[in-house]
């Protein structure tokens, strides 16, 4: 869809001028000055590293990162990844982490936005408190929750014991079976406010008249939500879910600080694993190959991201 209209545009634009693309670029040369700083920064910090990562993924580089001594190894780094059992554990963890965090953050955030949409006493304060976890640093959040989950002096364990549910405080982040869900709770704590802000902004664009008209026509609260509010929010929801998914897929700080990927890889996700391979074990080639794979996955996610955003663009143009 997007590609088609894009082509039609350039063809339509080019014909009346008759000078070709170069001429057009020359005509608009002053315009590029405005975007040049942004593009320059992006090129240095993004394009160059991407190129370099791809190159490194075909080489074995010595631990000290002496680039002159690197040896070409072809696809060995890639086969090493796909044949290692850790790869599958980490991939499974990443999937659970990303899907659970994204889904729950979105649902909780959206529900908060709906509940906060109507004005009531103390709404502003409540909204402000709910946003705070999103603002504070993930490092601080990790330490706060690490202390809450502490196996000897953690408050959750103490409450459970005080209520008589268990005899001993449970080991939340030191046990293979509970570590991932425990970290997901922390991640949602930090992420749901973002969904809430986005959906609150989205809710403000739903026309009141439509809701009132639906009410007059006898639609109940659920029907009004499902047939009026929700269709209006489809675009915002898509963008929010994609941004959340990408952020979760890319998270590093919470698992890294709280568990470092342990116990026995139970909380390693792709990013922490790559970091450990590169800067912990100094296996630069394998880490780069991992990054390239990650890159491919993200590009396919990026396709949907751009589609969702350009959906916005096109509606914009139509208006």
């Amino acid at each position, binding site marked *: 869809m997007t590609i088609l209209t894009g082509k039609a545009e350039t063809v339509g634009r080019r014909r009346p001028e008759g000078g070709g693309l170069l001429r057009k670029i020359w005509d*608009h040369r002053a315009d590029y000055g405005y975007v040049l700083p942004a593009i320059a920064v992006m090129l240095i910090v993004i394009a160059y*590293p*991407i190129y370099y990562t791809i190159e490194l993924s075909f080489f074995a580089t010595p631990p000290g990162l002496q680039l002159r001594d690197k040896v070409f190894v072809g696809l060995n780094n890639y086969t090493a990844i796909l044949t290692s059992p850790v790869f599958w554990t980490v991939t499974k963890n990443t999937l659970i982490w990303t899907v659970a965090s994204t889904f729950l953050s979105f649902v909780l955030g959206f529900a908060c936005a709906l509940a906060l949409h109507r004005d009531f006493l103390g709404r502003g304060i409540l909204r*402000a408190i709910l946003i705070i*976890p999103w*603002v*504070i640093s993930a490092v601080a959040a990790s330490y706060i929750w690490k202390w809450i989950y502490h196996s*000897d002096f953690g408050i959750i364990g103490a409450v459970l014991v005080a209520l008589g549910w268990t005899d001993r405080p449970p080991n939340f982040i030191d046990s293979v079976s509970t570590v991932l869900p425990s970290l997901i709770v922390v991640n949602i704590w930090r992420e749901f406010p973002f969904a809430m802000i986005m959906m609150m902004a989205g809710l403000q*664009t739903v026309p009141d008249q439509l809701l009132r008209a639906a009410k007059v026509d006898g639609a109940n609260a659920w029907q009004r939500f499902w047939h009026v509010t929700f269709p209006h929010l489809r675009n915002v929801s898509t963008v929010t879910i994609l941004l959340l998914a990408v952020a979760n897929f890319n998270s590093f700080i919470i698992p890294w600080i709280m568990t470092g990927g342990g116990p026995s890889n139970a909380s390693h996700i792709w990013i922490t694993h790559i970091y450990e391979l590169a800067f912990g074990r100094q296996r630069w080639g394998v880490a780069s190959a991992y990054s390239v794979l990650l890159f491919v996955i993200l590009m396919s996610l990026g396709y949907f991201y751009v589609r969702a*955003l350009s959906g916005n663009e096109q509606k914009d143009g139509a208006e």
Partner: protein
Amino acid sequence: MTAMTDTVARRPSSRRRQIDGWRWSGRIFLVFMLLYTALPMVWMLITSIKSGFAAMQFPPQWWPDQPTLASYEKLLDPQNSVGQDFLHFFWNSLFVSTTTTILSVIVAVPAAYAFSRFTFPGRNFLFFAVLLRNMFPAVIFLVPLFILMRAIGLVNTHGSLVLTYLTFGLPLAIWLLKGFYDNIPVQLEQAARIDGATRFQAFVLIVMPLSTPGIIATAIYSFIGAWNEYIYAYTFLSKNEQLTLPVGIQRFFSENTTDFPGLMAASFMMSVPVVVLFLLLQRYFVRALTEGAVKH
């Protein structure tokens, strides 16, 4: 007759009961979310005013027997080494975040304006290329950027951080601001130019003031992002006196693993500047999202 008035009277009340059901479940849900959000922070504050000994007790003291501000005094006292380090980290964070914020506004404003107003070839491609930056995790860029920074001599300087932080603030900043400029009528500028203003004057005098909320929102976003960033700072800086707060605190407490009151006090003080900044300016942020990003 009475039966009829009965049914007439009953229907609205049953509907009201239904609405009340939704409203009450909404309230209960909000209370639950409030507890989920606030209790960890409350526990952080309570722990931070305990002595090290009081924190390590089971069952815990729900409220400390002898509340003390000792942890805060220790962190803010420039006389001892802990306080010296903490204040150093604090200033480093402030310097890096402020520089990043100023630069990202300077770079993002003209770019967003151009993406909104001009139709140069490759505009869409460049716009989406900028947005795609959001997709990629820091770790992918870490090794090559480390090599790059080493090559241009920026390792162990704050410049390396400012340069990298710029890029992850920029995409959202440009996207938000572009939405703003899209909503400002071109006629306003045209009128100014007919009155003799140059394009630049029209931009500075007419467009910039109208997009102030967007610029403020962009600035907050960049500042918070830079203030909280951890991975690059962790990798690029190794000298103790250069560390920013997140890394500094982590280094410090990996050596003193049992000082939880100190750790909580440090976490609290690290959060104060960004939380205060955000709460003061949050209405701009929500407005910018509504006008810039969502309403299209």
